[in-house]
């Protein structure tokens, strides 16, 4: 594995391999006072975030640090990006400084792919083989989020294959939904998207999933339900009449959560808007795996860094 840009680059064996590595890394750190592994000593990992983030950036940074990589964080504000430097020049600069891995989040879909193409082409010039990890590109993909969701589902349900997973809400603007649909389908799950017609992307019919507009009808048969945040910052039009109406039709209230089977798990990629897509009492309930998702995020990102950086170049 040279880059991690899209979950569609992973077949079932590769994805399962990453999840197994994440499990073993979790075991290796379990109950230890010193949460530090020497595995990536001398490797430099740079996070380059052109969009706000708490959990993704911090969890990549912790993942790198727990494996002894040197991690550096660059954000668009406060860097030369603010002076008008292009994505390519910023990336080349970081590569020339010896970055073994650049983790990028960018508002433009496809930004990580462009970076990876440049990194491969410029490897001769900069003298460094830089791996690119997509930490969210526009409304396209967020592969490590889908991997950590799959890890959480595997923990809680025992397996992903054969399970029915509902993904509810603003699918149109959600890279999390897109990555999850493709990864969960690759792993053998049955995925149901539940959203108002205005919040579904063009081409959703070609995705490996079913589409529904009625949450209440789907809930009793789900093994897990993943609530998506309504991404108001990406909405430049009226996608639904009011927040109140959205919450009433697509929010996971206590009454709705009661429709789920006993064993079903509630996920949310965060950040949550409590009272909008999910009721606070549901988010904090025993069936909520939201904090487990965050904890798994560190192990999954460690696994990604391990597979990209630990071994010899392929």
């Amino acid at each position, binding site marked *: 594995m040279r880059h991690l840009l899209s979950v569609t680059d992973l077949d079932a064996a590769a994805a399962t391999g990453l999840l197994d590595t994440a499990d073993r890394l979790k075991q290796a750190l379990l109950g*230890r006072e010193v949460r530090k592994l020497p595995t990536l000593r001398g490797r430099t990992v740079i996070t380059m975030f052109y969009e706000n983030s708490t959990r993704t950036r911090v969890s990549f940074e912790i993942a790198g640090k727990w494996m002894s990589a040197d991690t550096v964080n660059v954000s668009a504000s406060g860097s030369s990006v603010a002076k008008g430097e292009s994505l390519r020049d910023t990336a080349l600069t970081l590569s020339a400084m010896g970055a073994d891995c650049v983790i990028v989040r960018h508002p433009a879909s496809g930004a990580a792919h462009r970076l990876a193409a440049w990194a491969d082409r410029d490897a001769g010039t900069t003298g460094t083989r830089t791996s690119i990890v997509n930490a969210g590109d526009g409304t396209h993909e967020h592969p490590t989020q889908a991997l950590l969701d799959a890890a959480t589902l595997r923990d809680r349900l025992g397996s992903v294959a054969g399970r029915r997973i509902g993904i509810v809400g603003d699918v149109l603007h959600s890279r999390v939904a897109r990555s999850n649909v493709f990864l969960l389908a690759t792993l053998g799950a049955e995925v149901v998207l539940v959203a108002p017609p205005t919040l579904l992307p063009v081409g959703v019919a070609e995705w490996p999933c079913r589409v529904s507009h009625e949450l209440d009808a789907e809930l009793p048969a789900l093994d897990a339900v993943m609530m998506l945040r309504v991404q108001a910052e990406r909405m430049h039009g009226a996608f639904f009449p009011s927040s109140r109406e959205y919450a009433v039709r697509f929010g996971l209230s206590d009454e709705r959560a009661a429709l789920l089977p006993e064993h079903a798990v509630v996920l949310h990629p965060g950040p949550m808007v409590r009272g909008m897509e999910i009721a606070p009492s549901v988010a904090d309930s025993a069936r909520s795996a939201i904090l487990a998702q965050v904890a798994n995020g560190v192990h999954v990102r460690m696994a990604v860094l391990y597979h990209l950086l630990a071994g010899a170049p392929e």
Partner: protein
Amino acid sequence: MATERRGDSAGAAAPDRELLTAADVTRTIARIAHQIIEKTAFEPDRADDVVLIGIPTGGAVLARRLAAAIAEFTGTAPAVGAVDPTLYRDDLRRKPARALEDTAVPEGGLDDRLVVLVDDVLYSGRTVRAALDALNDHGRPRAVQLAVLVDRGHRELPIRPDYVGKNVPTSRDEQIVVLLAELDGRDGVALRRAAGA
């Protein structure tokens, strides 16, 4: 040494020379178990003091067998666990990323306990070095001893086993193949000439 095990297609040219039969393996494990009881002064009422830690995958199986043998002889089993040394290896960058194996430190941790590290084949000593570093990150044992089923020589580090099932002089182009019933369906140890050698 996980790489010493189960690679059977490549060296099919010369027949394997059997070093230990299934019965020999059972006898050897029993003998090492007796030696561990003696050398660690293992007493059932202080069984907590001794922890057998296997190096996956062969060593982890052997650690469980040794614990069962010790239980048979004394009535009490010592704690058993496994530590995967992969994340601590010094040759990670020489090969594509390796799959990780299970790590399971027994309840109570390793602090102030006597750890017997168990592996199937001792060769360069680099795996044991990595395992010692891993142990060190899990706690501070009172002492660490090393038990191996086969010592084939060619040490590259100052590491010496405390318990040896069988010493086998080898050349570097030979392979030691260890078979264990839990993993391979039967027990046995054989010496294999490398293909083309």
